[in-house]
């Protein structure tokens, strides 16, 4: 067995995984958002966004504007929500901004979704990013993968295997 040969082959597998991960990290640093690309999971913004649409986020803005579509996370729930800013109250002295959001397709605002007793989101704490760009449908595969545990394993296996088997 030739150790250098094995190392070189293994390195190619590493590169495939490393470049994907580091691209994601780089993008998240540039956009200042911990998940700069999200896939829409619910129909609460229909017809603007359907399940499976891919959204590109940007989070370097200091304040959000009314009408912006933002992605936010609520303490204790791990699914990010994509909704529109209905009102904002900003204080330029402290740099704080309170936001109230609503899904275009929902009847009422998001207060029932927020953490207990809260009636506002805070821009600097809760917001993951503002939606800037959009590709329809392409993310449906990831929904299928995340909602089907076997699909997840199959995908991981497939990525690993194809990296091992292809030489390019």
């Amino acid at each position: 067995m030739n150790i250098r040969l094995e190392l070189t082959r293994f390195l190619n597998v590493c590169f495939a995984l490393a470049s994907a991960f580091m691209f994601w990290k780089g993008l998240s640093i540039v956009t200042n958002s911990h998940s700069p690309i999200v896939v829409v999971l619910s129909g609460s913004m229909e017809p603007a966004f359907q399940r499976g649409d891919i959204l590109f986020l940007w989070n370097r803005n200091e304040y959000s504007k009314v009408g912006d579509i933002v992605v936010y996370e609520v303490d204790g729930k791990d699914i990010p929500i994509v909704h529109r800013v209905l009102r904002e109250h900003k204080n330029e002295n402290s740099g704080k901004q309170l936001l109230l959001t609503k899904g275009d397709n929902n009847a009422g605002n998001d207060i029932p979704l927020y953490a207990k007793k809260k009636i506002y989101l805070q821009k600097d704490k809760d917001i993951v990013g503002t939606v800037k760009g959009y590709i329809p449908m392409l993310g449906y595969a990831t929904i299928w993968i995340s909602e089907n545990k076997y699909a997840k394993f199959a995908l991981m296996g497939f990525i690993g295997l194809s990296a091992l088997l292809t030489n390019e």
Partner: protein
Amino acid sequence: MSKPINVYCSADLRQTLDEALPGVFSRLGYVQSFKLIDTKLIIGYSIAVVAGVSFYLDKILEYSESLTYQKILVGLYAALSGLFWYFNKYIEKNVKYTGINKSKSIQVAATLEQYTLDYKLKIRDNEGHVVETTLPANKVFTEQGYLQTDLLYKWFENQLNDLTKKRN
């Protein structure tokens, strides 16, 4: 012999031939020098380690806690990738084998373009003599995908004789 390859896949042809070079030259009395391969492996694995550390930090730390480290790691990753690219393009220049036989040293650079079977070689010795030649892969592979090492050995022996003739 090892697994058969698909002889109509240029990448497979190139990889199999590349990996057969050390064996052929050791039969011709050369001792392989690993300087280039080792440098490449070191740069390559430092890239993999940087990505690995970044992945690990991402797992154990909150996004905001790890942000500073991640910025450094992404920077490092970009710099090392640049170095790796530079090394491949300007230093390694497709050199697949370097070896020494007593006072003679020899360097073999090889390419095989996509959709062809011509293994193009540039054999250079320490006195600056160069042989540029082409090995059609169908002269050393069987249709079933096995490399005939004996034929490859004989072919290289002839090429090296040419190089010796040039020298005299």
